């Protein structure tokens, strides 16, 4: 089914808090059956024959922040990169199973990865502004997608949304490399929302930042949650507990392959409301990880 950006921007109103809600005041209402943006079904990712992620099945809900946590090498980032087909760019990568986005499998033959990525944006681990002015960083996406009307307004709006406007409004046309790491990362978030995406993927967005810059990004994520669906990979369990509505815990398993060899690959252990994962995890391995016994 063809799907135009105009439709993408028309979103149903956020579902009213109902059913089971998070007891933590910080989290706004989380509906158990909030609308599903993604449905992953038996997703496995292999790099040149080595299976990095195996058999992940989980939904991702609209207007929520979903955190992927787990020890290093468990495949969190790999799984995240399946959601906007960034894995396509890695030679030898192969995805099996279905990643359904509003019902359409992103890995179907007719799906154009460019069309996928303009709806599903991404913020990377290390801030990666373009070697251009602050203005041009924001304007690049709208320009290549043909959204050229009111570009100045769009740039200002995005910088305001990313809580960066006041800091940069005097120097919009100076290099983005003059900004601090935290500012650069907020610029990258502003750049991502400039193309009006449906979903924003964040791959450890704060791992290169100091605690103050991290706190600002976390505040920002909570504000953006009302308009966007956010999936974040994080090493920092406190971060997941602070910002996310749901948490998926992944770990590395060694299990015999079909051909009898032991192979390490990442698996989804447990996926639930963040409060449940952190207060009352259903799996022993989750409990060990969040209580700091391994990882």
């Amino acid at each position, binding site marked *: 089914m063809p799907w135009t950006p105009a439709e993408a921007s028309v979103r149903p109103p956020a579902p009213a808090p109902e059913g089971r809600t998070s007891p933590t005041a910080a989290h706004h209402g989380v509906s158990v059956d909030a609308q599903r943006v993604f449905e992953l079904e038996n997703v496995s990712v292999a790099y040149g024959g080595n299976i990095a992620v195996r058999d992940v099945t989980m939904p991702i809900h609209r207007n929520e922040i979903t955190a992927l946590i787990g020890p290093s090498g468990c495949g969190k980032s790999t799984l995240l990169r399946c959601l906007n087909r960034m894995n396509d760019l890695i030679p030898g990568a192969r995805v099996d199973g279905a990643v359904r986005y509003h019902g359409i499998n992103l890995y179907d033959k007719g799906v154009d990865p*460019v069309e996928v*990525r303009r*709806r599903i944006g991404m913020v*990377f681990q290390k801030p990666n502004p373009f070697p251009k002015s602050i203005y041009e960083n924001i304007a*690049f*996406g709208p320009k*290549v*997608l043909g959204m050229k009307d009111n570009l100045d307004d769009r740039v200002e709006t995005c910088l305001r949304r990313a809580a960066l406007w006041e800091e940069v409004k005097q120097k919009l046309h100076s290099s983005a490399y003059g900004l601090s790491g935290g500012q650069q990362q907020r610029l990258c978030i502003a*750049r991502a929302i400039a*193309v009006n995406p449906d979903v924003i993927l964040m791959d450890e967005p704060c791992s290169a930042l100091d605690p103050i810059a991290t706190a600002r990004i976390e505040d920002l994520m909570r504000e953006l949650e009302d308009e966007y669906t956010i999936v974040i990979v994080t090493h920092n369990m406190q971060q997941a507990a602070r910002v996310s509505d749901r948490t998926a815990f992944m770990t590395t398993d060694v299990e015999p392959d079909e051909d009898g060899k032991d192979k390490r690959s990442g698996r989804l252990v447990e996926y639930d409301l963040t409060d449940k994962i952190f207060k009352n995890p259903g799996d022993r391995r989750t409990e060990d990880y969040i209580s700091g016994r391994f990882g």
Partner: protein
Amino acid sequence: MGLGTPASSVETAVQALATPKRRGARERVFAVVLLSATVVSVLVLGVLIADVLMDGLGRINGEFFTSYASRRAERTGIRAGLTGSLSLLVMVAAMAFPLGVAAALYLEEFAPDNRLTRVLEANIANLAGVPSVVYGLLGAAVFVYLFEFGRSLLTGAFTLALLILPVVIVASREALRAVPRAIRDGGLALGATPLQVAWRQTVPSALPGILTGTILALSRAVGETAPILVAGAVLFRRSDNVPWGFFDAFTALPIQIYDFVSRPQEAFRVEAAAAAIIVLLAVLLVMNSAAIVLRNRYARRW
């Protein structure tokens, strides 16, 4: 002063920390050897330049630039060679730059990783090492006779463009490769097509490096004698190639120098030749300085 350590024990400590005499001497000898290696190479060049300047500086005047070649040494000039060289420079740049950058972009950004690509890559690297006179023979065979461009400016420009094309490709690829993956990923993650990312992010970011490599390659083309001599440059010419006479005969600065030094009279062999060499060196120096300025000015910190 009551600050602890007595003076004598401080002296002992300083002695213990001093460089042992033998090692100090060896290090000095080694440094001198390295320095003299550097000095020798610069010195030889310095002597050559000084010699050329002494022979030729007196011969350079306004008329030397505005006169065509003459059989009389005191009236000869480099006008035809200079205009020929500048025409070649512009034409070669117009041919080699777009072609070289496009080839580099394909190999670096779009080519599938397969056997054909690897064969192409290996061949381009090898072509950069082929002696220039071979390109001249190729130019003579293909452009003069096969395409029937004759012994013309166009033939010379094609020949030199082919000569520097592998160098431009290799330099452009290196410049493109230096652009971090993260820049491309950032563009692609916004829904830009690979072509848009290449065109608006990767190439502009790599442009200083690409231009530097291209200018250095062009300065090599300007200094080349053998290939255009084989491919049909004329030694003696009394008209300009500006504005463009594509199918006219042509000469170039190094060709005129070659002509001057092969004549018997000292006024040609020494004075006029040295003067023309000074002009050629000045042109090359300007080009290479432009490349250095470009590189420093736009040096990127990622």
